[in-house]
């Protein structure tokens, strides 16, 4: 997990609740399942222990963890030590905005029940740990295009079930 010159910009993204339940995890660095579990556990404990007035950055091993709380959820991103912390904070915000726009006033339950969507939206924003698209409009366009395909699929399978060719 040591950051080398070839580490992705964002090494991992974690979403967890105030109760410490992990809601989403995305790892861009090559670490084993065991390491991932330990990292998540340690970080959740460390972040939940922090007070509201503290800064949003946490030095953790060789990484810097940027986190922010939105309602009952904590969003956190691990970046390299000399990476831009403030903009990472805004990357988190952009993700929250996207979720909010997509689900319409997002809440923790939306993310629990539609976890795969939360992943798909993140995939439009970040690929392999680097920013792909920062335009809110473009991301939402891509996600709704996926939904259109889904509906098509479903209509087609419904028709098939009725024995009608699509």
């Amino acid at each position: 997990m040591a950051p080398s010159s070839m580490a992705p910009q964002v090494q991992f993204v974690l979403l967890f609740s105030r109760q410490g339940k992990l809601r989403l995890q995305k790892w861009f660095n090559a670490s084993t399942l065991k390491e991932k579990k330990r990292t998540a556990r340690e970080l959740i404990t460390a972040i939940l222990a922090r007070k509201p007035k503290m800064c949003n950055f946490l030095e953790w091993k060789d990484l810097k963890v940027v986190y922010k709380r939105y309602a009952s959820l904590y969003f956190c991103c691990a970046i390299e030590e000399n990476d831009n912390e403030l903009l990472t904070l805004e990357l988190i915000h952009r993700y929250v905005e996207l979720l909010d726009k997509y689900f319409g006033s997002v809440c923790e339950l939306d993310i629990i029940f539609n976890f795969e969507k939360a992943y798909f939206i993140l995939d439009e924003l970040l690929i392999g740990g680097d920013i792909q698209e920062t335009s809110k409009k473009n991301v939402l366009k891509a996600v709704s295009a996926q939904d259109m395909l889904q509906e098509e699929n479903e209509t087609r399978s419904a028709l098939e079930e009725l024995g009608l060719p699509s």
Partner: protein
Amino acid sequence: MPSSKSDTMRGLAVFISDIRNCKSREAEIKRINKELANIRSKFKGDKQLDGYSKKKYVCKLLFIFLLGVDIDFGYMEAVNLLSSIKYTEKQIGYLFISVLIDHSHDLMKLVIQSIKNDLNSGKPIHISLALNCVANVGSPEMAEQLASEVPRILVGSDTMDTVRQNAALCLLRLYRVSTKILPPGEWTTRIVQLLSDKHLGVVTAACSLIYELARENPEDYKACVPLAVSRLSRIATANYGDLQDYTYYFVPAPWLSVKLLRLLQTYPPPDDPAIRARLHECIEAVLNRAMEPPKSKKVQHSNAKNAVIFEAISLIIHYDNDPDQMVRACNQLGTFLSSRETNLRYLALESMCALASSEYSHDAVKKHQSTVIQALKSERDVSVRQRAIDLLYAMCDKTNAIEIVEEMLNYLKTADYSIREEMVLKVAILAERYAVDYTWYVDTILRLIGIAGDYVSEEVWYRVIQITVNRDDVQGYAAKTVFEALQAPACHENMVKVGAYILGEFGNLIAGDGRSSAGTQFELLHSKFHFCSTATRAILLTTYVKFINLFPELKGQIQKVLRSDNQIRNADVELQQRCLEYLRMTNVASSEVLNTVLEVMPPFPERDSSILAKLQKKKSVISNKNLADGKVENSEGVILLNLTLIIALYLVLPDLIARDPVEPAPTSTIDGASSGALLVDVFAEAEPKLPQSSSEVIAQDNSDKFLMKNNGVLYESSVVQIGVKSEFKQGTGVLSIFFGNKTNFQLAAFTSVVECSADLQTECPPINSILEAGAQVQQTISLEAIGDFMETPLLNLSFNMNGGHQRLSLNLPVFLTKFMSPVEMNAENFFMRWKNLSGPAQEAQEVFKAKFPMDKEQSSIKIQGFGFSVLEGIDPNIENFISAGILYTRQGQVGCLMRLEPNLQASMYRLTIRASRDNVSGVLFKLINPHF
């Protein structure tokens, strides 16, 4: 819009609700197990599952995995989904693979096949899914198999913008896995051109890729600099409406701006004056924007704006060439220091640290000293206080050292435990580095021990002893101060150690004062004895025997203590032995002998060059971690290491004495052999405990074996073999280094750089940055001796293997003697020259015990190996060796004469070296002596 999703995969939603309704962890596990059993039976069942069901079950498995349960089946079904024609099934299949599958999974081949199919499907949405998956998983196998397809998609003329974005980042991931997939050349120009793409999303993604490529191959990608500057300039001058959705809370394209500024930090300032001027304008524009009134009160606006400002300041610091901008940057950070946002204060402190180490801005940073000290006192967040400490450390110089050290000591009293040790180190370093007055230094270190004794490492208290021993102007003061400090009823054990050592050496300097008479000193120390650990007790015992020498009037009292049952029958072998030996020694030895044995310790050597470089390496590891700014000078570390050895000797003294022909100590636990073993033990314990990094190898010094030969294997591990072939002629030489990769992996970012003293000039061409599996590469270094160098040059290797970074430092076998050529001369000539070279700095002589069998032929070979002649018939004693040589350096030739006189009965040698240039004899002596 999301309404359509709620009714998909109803079973999944029901399952998630069930889990949420579970009252206990046990109930949850029960429910999960039930579901797992259900899914397993579905997958194993005879009935062919349709795509929808497969998708649903795979999705359930994914959910279960995210709950923290390991999933060991369902992979095959997920891989099947990849070849579904339905987008959503494919999408879930890819998600499962991205989240769960391991590089080495058996199904990887099938996954790659599906990815290939999708990449060639011609359907942009399928291509995107596949690229995204590759970017997430990024196995070496994928890199190998997809290396040709992804760049093609990236620059293809008919590729959609979103796909291009995917491809850029996918390629980036593959490049990180294996840099060889994209050698500079074929694609370089077209990739760089992406910086001018009209779609800002494409530019942003491409910028990440180019950044990494440029860092690996700066020369090949330097065309990106003007393009980046031009892009930056267009953003800087844009109105916020111009960039449409890429304007974030009134800040134009912050992500792209930061990426471009970061890309520019890969390069030195542009040479072209026009580009340089344009970039200067951009940076000014960014700094100007900081002064403008905010366009929005939202924190998003100020964060994005400040993110760009911080990145611009990083670039200014990277260039380190524009005093005006650096001072301006510093002032900007100064305003952040008083911001209400904790984040800004934290980042400003961090950024200022870098400015403090530049000569242009050091003084500007110092203006903020009081604010920083205030931050140390009032910040509520420990990480911000930590930054304040780092900054104080970085801005410290001789004008403000006393004040800064004082503030740090004050803060140390209440500092968080997590940062105390590091603070102690910093205070100790500053106190020493800027000590004008050594009494201040001694005070500071003793206060450190008083305030945070538990965090004072051996290095720190060794060091105060070392300085006291070496500086006679501070010895009396140090003795007085430790004596006073020891008066405290509960003083720290480290204080006892320092006190014991210093009083044992210099207690006599304060014994004239009735308040600190010899007896009082002894009683004071002995009152601590029973509260101390064995190690400290051992030091105290040595102090006691030193007292017998310093203050003969205490002999009876101290001997009584040594003789007491507590001591002489101590269960600890070390303590028991010390007591017995000291007691014995003080009984049998005359006062002259005692005086010689227990004399004041000689000054510690100030420098020892051969380990200097090694320690510097180790220091750099520490400084990365602890000392943040890497400004630690290496000399202190070196001295510490020596010191450790010398103190070890001090601790071991009794063992050496035990070998005297005095009758063996009457004890059953110690026999003759164990004292030797103990000696080794004490050394082992006294070994300095420096932090080790697994990736950093300070190689075993193997270079000595090359003193008398020129070719061979310098270093070998399971990863690399490094061979050396060298040739020297008069003042110059050529050294060929062969690097062999013994692994089955490629070693990337392979660099090999030589570091040496100014007295040796080396020319070291860069080598190919890739070392393929099993391959060998040669690096040829030309050398010229400028003066009489002592340090061997250091070869610093670094490379990436399997994603890990490795570093290795080796001493290269280049010794001063390599530039020596033998000279023949007759007896008359020899003695005439010998007599002429009689100045004290021209001669080095010592009598020492032979370290090898005294074989005449061997000795002759060794002497010639060092480049000297062996002259016959000059010395009347045929056992003696007479030799001469000329040392060629650019500063001139140095005539060197040597006489080696063996004494076979006593197994001793006398070695005398004389040289026409001052100090050369000493250097040669140090090289030659260990080999006889």
